[in-house]
């Protein structure tokens, strides 16, 4: 019983690895479904969500926080889907969207640029130069995206439990390692890690509900007690408090909601 996130670059064979791991373990495989669900639930066109999770924020986005709201919707949809466990997620930033949950096995699949270029040339029927340019551009966008929203580099191996390079090691070898690791005691859901997952899902739900009006707030939850961190002044904080109280009646699982204005955001907040 585990949740496996597989981070990958384009044409790194990460999708193939994810699908084979899911097939072998009998897990559900998630990627685009999360975007579709977020699109349905929050009435946002899928293309906007795809752009939000793929393209680095523009200068305008940094002021309007539009991208942060879209990411909050995606994170909310993802955390709801993985609540029931036994899931392999190979979309973008799973290791960051599900941070702080002990039974999440975080994997990154990498491949040499030359191998990736050859794959893209074969699949898209483009020249070597075009394929190389596209892959480098994609990599840069993803690095910028992760850095601007989370302040980390997705290529930093310390963000993952396992980084596997598909070169000498093949897709099936990677599948073996991941399945073995997922079976370890550390990655099995415990009452505590399951509770943490539920709190994360709850915090994400609250954040998604407030994201369009208050995109720069942070939310944490402990045993259903939700804390909302904001930098706004007293007047706006009072308005936020009223909104939060009404949310507490709408969202199942909330015991209590409190607003914390002007205090440091803890690392477990989303």
């Amino acid at each position, binding site marked *: 019983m585990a949740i496996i996130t597989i981070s990958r670059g384009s044409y790194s064979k990460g999708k193939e690895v994810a699908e084979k791991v899911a097939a072998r373990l009998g897990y559900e495989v998630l990627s685009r479904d999360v975007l579709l669900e977020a699109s349905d639930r929050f009435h946002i066109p899928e293309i906007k969500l795809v752009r939000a999770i793929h393209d680095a924020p523009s200068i305008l986005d940094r002021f309007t926080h539009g991208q942060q709201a879209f990411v909050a919707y995606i994170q909310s949809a993802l955390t709801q889907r993985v609540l029931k466990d036994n899931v392999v997620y190979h979309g973008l930033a799973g290791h960051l969207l599900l941070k702080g949950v002990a039974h999440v*096995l975080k994997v990154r699949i990498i491949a040499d640029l030359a191998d990736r270029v050859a794959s893209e040339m074969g699949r898209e029927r483009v020249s070597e130069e075009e394929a190389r340019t596209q892959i480098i551009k994609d990599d840069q966008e993803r690095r910028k995206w992760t850095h601007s929203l989370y302040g980390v580099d997705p*290529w*930093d*191996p310390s963000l993952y*439990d396992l980084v596997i390079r598909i070169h*000498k090691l093949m897709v099936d070898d990677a599948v073996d390692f991941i399945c073995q*690791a997922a079976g*370890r005691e*550390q990655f099995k859901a415990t009452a505590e890690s399951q509770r943490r997952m539920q709190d994360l899902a709850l915090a994400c739900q609250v954040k998604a509900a407030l994201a369009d009006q208050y995109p720069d707030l942070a939310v944490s939850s402990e045993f259903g007690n939700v804390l909302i961190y904001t930098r706004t002044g007293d007047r706006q904080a009072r308005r936020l408090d009223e909104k939060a109280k009404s949310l507490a009646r709408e969202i199942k699982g909330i015991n209590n909601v409190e607003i914390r204005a002007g205090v440091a955001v803890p690392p477990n907040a989303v």
Partner: protein
Amino acid sequence: MSSIIISTDLLSVGQMIAERTAQALGYAHLGRQILSSVAEKHQVREDKLVAALDEDASFWGLASKNRDLYLAYIQAATLDQFLGDNVVCEGLAAHLYIRDVSHILMIRILSDPKVRANQIAAQQDIPPKRARQLLERQEKRRRRWSLRAFGLAEADPSLYDMVISLSQIEADKAVDILTDTVGYRKFQPMTYSRQCLQDKALASQVRATLVPRFPGVKVQSRDRIVVVQTRTFKRNKRQKAEAIKEIAQQIPGVEYVEVHSNKDFLRQGKDSTD
């Protein structure tokens, strides 16, 4: 049989994993214990060799010329040990100079950052926050060292077949992964991969012999033919090439030596401005 190179962010963790893996496979453990014999062979202090592996060159510490010299000695000794196969190596920076040999499994082990920070806090009797700052500084220094000494960023995951973090995966499981993986067909030596290793070993022997007299030389080898690249002024070019050939040809295993001198960069600069 194949070999394993382990790179790590904490020396003691690398040693522990390498020892356990070597024991499980019945391989030899190759670590910093070879430095005493290297020091004796080249008449240098062992602590200087350790410093070359751990510290960046600086005005107050190790000069870059000496660092390159000591690393050349270590490289030659390490590659010599690899020729025997069945080796688990750590702590000698082998992941930065033994590249592209298909039968060597390259692994990076990342220790739990909390454990590392606690270790520093306990050793230096400082608060955890300060220990984390020191850790970040150490990582930056290490990155600078690997870039300056070998032109590679040690933490780059594309240098390895696999990176395992010990934050969630315990050391015994990492040892299991290593012992299983090294048995894969891809890591079995072939004639070509053995030849690659022999070429690297010979090139590093030649370099270690030449570097004391000709710092900055680059050496490549293929099928006992050695190519030495050096920078020289036009007036010294012939003398220097002859001296290099004379020294290199005495090294066992060398059949033929070719010396390529880079252009006289100072004269070239002068001519271009005339």
